[in-house]
């Protein structure tokens, strides 16, 4: 896997070289440090694939089994490395298959560049074979997009694409390239983009706002931090820890903030949100100063906005001005990169401990432990629980694994019970809730962190949405660990049907195939666990495997995830059962 290491391209800055547009794309990718791309070939992108063939010693192309898989793999890679993930597809159906991944990356602020082939320039707008208006289609789900129709546009647009994808609040960019632009020659000269005049990616921190924030925090009796992925994207993990420790503030993470702090840090009080922890949700409505850092007050976090933290002064640290006052009205807005703003905040904070306040969280944790956690991770009933599987994975991986979760009940169990010691270790589809995300994302995550264990936690429903990516794992011998928590149901929808639709299980029962046989068909080592006595050994065998491994755990069919804030209810109404 040496090819995965970053390599500088050897372009001569003084004298432009005459090359084809397709070759120029390769040089641009290498110049941006992107030497791993995911994709799927087709007619309109063949010139670029021809160059990929010639440059395979410098640039690795991973053939996924579906273009959606390419986007999620690129996302997984981006999330684990912090670099830009790259996916490629042909025009028409290849391009439209990227849309889910683009939307996922857009809502979860993941840096990604997608390159699509397009019909040749003179055929544009003629309903040519495999022509689709991917610029029009992808506009609402991209940070930026552009259609290249002339080869000479390539260097500048590719530089801009990478710059926009990774700067400020990151996001996906799509570059559509007509076939003629791939064939045509240009005088190639590459210069990385450093500035776009109409784009201000990182607002300058305002000193007065930071002073106002510090004043509020210093005078607070019950300050409470809720942090999100902005901490990870801004590389502000150390700054967050310093602030939390100095001011003695209990801190909760959003689903995308997971792993930005050690799980076991004494001031980490757990997760907010619909299936977050009891205390962090309930005490949102008891704190006097709510400090939101790099999070966007998603409705799954706030529940009913009219009853959300109304008693508290709200301080919002964010890089994106459009997030300020979007959902929750703030008293102090601090714009900027969290690393920079928290660095400026730290010296202004008084040392504090807030012990009585922190004890409130401990008490609430005890209530949640007795009512929920105990039964989830140390069950006494016969059926296996998703929580105990997560606990075994924690033990076997010593909390060091990258956990990639899909969407549904298993995702909530994974995010509630997985323990983290290192940042960028939680990869999940938070905003879009894309079933089928985890298997391909785990491929990208593993290729981005070959020295780490990557464990995909997937339900039996989501698994079958992108199950074909087992072929990618087999072909590339990607040593990911795949855990399917099989309850023969679309568990989360079934839970809602049980609670809110009088147990009318409309289309949520799954008659599943033999998943172990399917994995075996791809020559992936696999095993199935049906009883508790076999769980530990199976998890250990999986974690010890040098190769990819598939583990199916047949769990209780009708378990529910709790705590739960019913949709539209207040965080104060968080239910334990």
């Amino acid at each position, binding site marked *: 896997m040496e090819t995965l290491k970053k390599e500088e391209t050897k372009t001569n800055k003084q004298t432009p070289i005459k090359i084809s547009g397709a070759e120029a794309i390769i040089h641009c990718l290498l110049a941006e440090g992107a030497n791993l791309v995911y994709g799927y070939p087709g007619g309109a992108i063949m010139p670029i694939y021809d160059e990929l063939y010639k440059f395979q010693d410098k640039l690795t192309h991973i053939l996924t089994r579906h273009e959606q898989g390419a986007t999620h793999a690129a996302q997984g890679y981006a999330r684990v490395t912090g670099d830009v993930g790259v996916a490629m597809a042909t025009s028409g159906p290849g391009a439209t298959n990227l849309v889910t991944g683009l939307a996922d990356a857009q809502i979860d602020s993941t840096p990604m560049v997608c390159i699509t082939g397009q019909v040749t320039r003179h055929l544009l707008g003629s309903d040519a074979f495999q022509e689709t208006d991917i*610029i*029009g289609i992808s*506009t*609402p789900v991209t*940070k*930026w*997009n*552009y*259609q290249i129709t002339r080869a000479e546009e390539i260097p500048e647009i590719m530089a801009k694409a990478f710059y*926009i994808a990774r700067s400020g609040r990151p996001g996906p960019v799509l570059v559509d390239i007509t076939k003629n632009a791939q064939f045509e020659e240009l005088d190639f000269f590459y210069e990385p983009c450093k500035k*776009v*005049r*109409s*784009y*201000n990616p990182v*607002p*300058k*921190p*305002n000193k*007065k*706002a930071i002073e106002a924030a510090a004043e509020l925090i210093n005078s607070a009796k019950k300050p409470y931090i809720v942090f999100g992925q902005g901490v990870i994207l801004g590389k502000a993990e150390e700054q967050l820890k310093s602030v939390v420790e100095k001011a003695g503030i209990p801190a909760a993470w959003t689903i995308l903030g997971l792993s930005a702090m050690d799980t076991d840090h004494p001031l980490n009080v757990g997760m907010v949100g619909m299936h977050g922890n009891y205390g962090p949700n309930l005490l949102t409505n008891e704190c006097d100063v709510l400090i939101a850092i790099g999070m966007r007050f998603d409705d799954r976090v706030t529940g009913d906005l009219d009853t959300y933290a109304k008693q508290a002064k709200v301080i919002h640290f964010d890089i*994106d*001005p*459009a997030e*300020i*006052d*979007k959902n929750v009205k703030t008293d102090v807005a601090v*714009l900027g990169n969290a690393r920079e703003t928290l660095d400026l905040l730290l010296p202004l904070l008084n040392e504090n401990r807030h012990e009585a306040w922190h004890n409130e969280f401990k008490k609430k944790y005890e209530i949640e432990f007795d009512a929920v956690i105990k039964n989830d991770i140390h069950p006494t009933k016969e059926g296996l629980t998703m929580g105990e599987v997560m606990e075994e994975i924690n033990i076997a991986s010593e909390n060091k694994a990258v956990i990639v979760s899909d969407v549904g009940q298993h995702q909530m169990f994974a995010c509630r019970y997985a323990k983290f010691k290192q940042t960028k270790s939680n990869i999940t589809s938070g905003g879009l809730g894309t079933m089928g995300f985890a298997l391909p994302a785990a491929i990208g995550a593993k290729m981005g962190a070959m020295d780490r264990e990557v464990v995909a936690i997937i339900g039996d429903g989501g698994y079958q949405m992108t199950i074909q990516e087992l072929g990618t794992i087999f072909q590339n011998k990607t040593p990911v660990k795949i855990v399917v928590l099989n309850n023969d149901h679309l568990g989360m929808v079934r839970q809602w049907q049980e609670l809110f639709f009088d147990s009318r299980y409309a289309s949520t029962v799954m008659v599943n195939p033999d998943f172990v046989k399917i994995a075996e068909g791809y020559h992936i080592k696999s095993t199935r666990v049906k009883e508790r006595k076999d769980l530990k050994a199976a998890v250990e065998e999986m974690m010890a495997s040098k190769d990819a491994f598939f583990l199916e755990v047949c769990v209780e069919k009708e378990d529910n995830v709790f705590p739960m804030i019913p949709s539209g209810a207040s965080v104060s109404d968080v239910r334990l059962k």
Partner: protein
Amino acid sequence: MEKEWFTISVYSENNVGLLNRISGIFLKRHINIESLNVSKSEIEGVSKFTIVVFTTPEWTRKIVGQIEKQIEVIKAFYHTDEETIYQESALFKIASDLLFDERQIQNIIKESNSQIVTVSRDFFVLAKSGRKEEIDEMHDLLEPYGIMQFVRSGRIAVSKTEMPISSILNGYYDYSK
């Protein structure tokens, strides 16, 4: 919050696709664009969108935030009617015989401050600039005689206060204000 008329002024790069991106922001929030005008601005190479909406100040602020977020948008502003000087233009195509047969039409032309752009054997064209209400009023007066074609432009507006695009482009603008 009460709905009001707002004029949103968007200064942007002149790029294909930006109109689609901006209109999508309104579409996503189910807010109707009452009028739209795109033209060059006072700064060379910078386009100006003038968009009129009828919605709450809260929604207008959020929409403007989302518009500004688009890469090719330099800056967006929003103003109430009182904060802007604004105009619309309209063209009326009317049968030529009316110009000679109906005395009242000549009075309408005179009193409305409109101009005759062209007269041919079959029709003549009236141009009228002004506020929406003035154009509506003229339309109502002419309608009984028969209007062959009518069209009104989107609003164009300038703000009473400064929109400091040059200082933004030159990097002097303080975003924290």
